[in-house]
């Protein structure tokens, strides 16, 4: 008995540690993001010290080349990153899941056409599509969110289409249809719940991709203008002073990586909770 019973708790502990680590990392960013709404160590636009100060007790990450507190900027970056990630994934999911489910239900010709469109869009780098959309609109936080959402939607649509097709081929769909369920009811009750665990994990990956892509857009000067500076803008600014003040390049990078890793760990942990067949002992 003990020999058989032993591996199970070990597996469960590993799963939950990923979940806890993810929640912790994401939680820190969420708390910081919320905190910036009511309080920051310094006024983000005020000159709080000398130019390019090194990290100190007064300025944890030093000051930028105008003398503004850099830690304050990074804290605000958390808020921007979360808004970008959530916004882009929400837009991408709305467009992508809708098109993907439609493609799964479509006649063969329409399905082929949609699938080919998804593949062509995916062939373009996410960043390139986003740059085109931003170029067509005015560079602002919202235009980059919209751009990234559109860029992500193709990947989400293709994944949704494949997952939905696999679910639609299952016997329980036929069973539901034989008992008189309509297609909208089948989508809501069977298709979406069954593709959700896989989609959720993918959304988290896309969340990370969106944040990194936004940082790249900002780095290229296509992101949101100050004072809503994202980590990407901070990195761009740090470029000129990377030898004299390396902290300005390192700190936004650490913030970016910690959030992306946190989201991925969280997704991994959540998938195991969402899928009851992975949850063995009750």
């Amino acid at each position, binding site marked *: 008995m003990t020999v058989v019973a032993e591996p199970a708790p070990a597996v469960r502990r590993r799963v939950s540690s990923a979940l806890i680590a993810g929640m912790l990392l994401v939680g820190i960013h969420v708390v910081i993001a919320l905190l910036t709404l009511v309080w920051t160590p310094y006024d983000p636009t005020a000159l709080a010290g000398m130019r390019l100060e090194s990290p100190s007790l007064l300025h944890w990450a030093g000051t930028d080349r105008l003398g503004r507190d850099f830690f304050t900027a990074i804290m605000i970056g958390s808020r921007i990153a979360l808004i970008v990630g959530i916004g882009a994934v929400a837009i991408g999911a709305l467009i992508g899941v809708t098109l993907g489910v439609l493609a799964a239900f479509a006649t063969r010709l329409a399905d082929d056409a949609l699938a080919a469109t998804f593949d062509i869009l995916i062939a373009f780098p996410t960043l390139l599509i986003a740059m085109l959309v931003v170029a067509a609109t005015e560079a602002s936080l919202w235009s980059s969110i919209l751009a990234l959402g559109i860029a992500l939607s193709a990947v989400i649509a293709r994944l949704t289409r494949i997952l939905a097709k696999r679910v639609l081929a299952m016997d329980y769909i036929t069973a539901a249809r034989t008992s008189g369920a309509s297609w909208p009811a089948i989508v809501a009750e*069977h298709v979406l719940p069954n593709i959700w665990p896989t989609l959720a994990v993918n959304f988290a990956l896309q969340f990370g991709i969106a944040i990194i892509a936004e940082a790249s857009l900002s780095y290229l000067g296509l992101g949101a203008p100050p004072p809503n500076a994202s980590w990407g803008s901070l990195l761009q600014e740090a470029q000129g002073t990377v030898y004299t003040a390396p902290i300005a390049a390192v700190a936004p990078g650490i913030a970016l990586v910690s959030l992306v890793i946190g989201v991925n760990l969280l997704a991994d942990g959540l998938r195991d909770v969402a899928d009851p067949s992975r949850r063995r002992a009750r």
Partner: protein
Amino acid sequence: MNLLEIRNLGIRAGDTELVSGLSFAIAPGQRLGLIGESGSGKSLTALAAIGLLPLGLTATGSIRLADAEAIGARDGALVPLRGTVTATVFQEPLTALDPLMRVGRQVAEPLSRRARRDGRSRDVNHEVLALLEQVALPEPDRIASAYPHEISGGQRQRVAIAMALACQPQLLIADEPTTALDVTTQAAILELLDGLVRERNMALLFISHDLPVVAGIVDDVLVLQRGRAVEAGPVAKVFAAPEAAYTRELIGAARRFDAELGSAA
């Protein structure tokens, strides 16, 4: 009026004929067995009857479901007939249940659909438990809150039967409902189906390759070979004096199998 009337049914996949020239009818309360080996077109016939042929297959001829022509009908026109005229129990209960939905909700779904159609809205929880009890599931409360992978194969098939009953159909289509089960569970499920069909005065279309199983539960049989009907008639007559060579072969094989079992025991 017949619940299901099939005339000269043909099912094709491209140039391959899977079923051809098949005709039969099921009146209210009648029990018909559709027999044949794997690939003889039994299940396709059942799916065609409710307009759910897989993509790429086409049906010709005439299928009248409660006096509505099913061949060539819009899917939307057939949706209201499915579940009210017919309900289906499938072979493999594990895949016929949604793995991510608790058993109770799966049974509740056709119940609330039925309730909505009849224009009444009510709490179906009580009905779910009553149905689970009717299909002789122990501890209905526990089963209702379990996921399909947490109960046994026989229990899953009972749940599938409960879902079919929830529709209150006039015709129950059972597509090899006992094939995936072991022999003792098989007998119990057959007994349950037999009792429920009698109690509710449903018609039954029972599909199987297993002669003894069919013989015990239906009045008439139709023997299919490669998509064609080779013999039809009352079950006692067909089994006692089979006319077609294929039927004799099937019965002979079943007897030899039983004899082998007997001598081995």
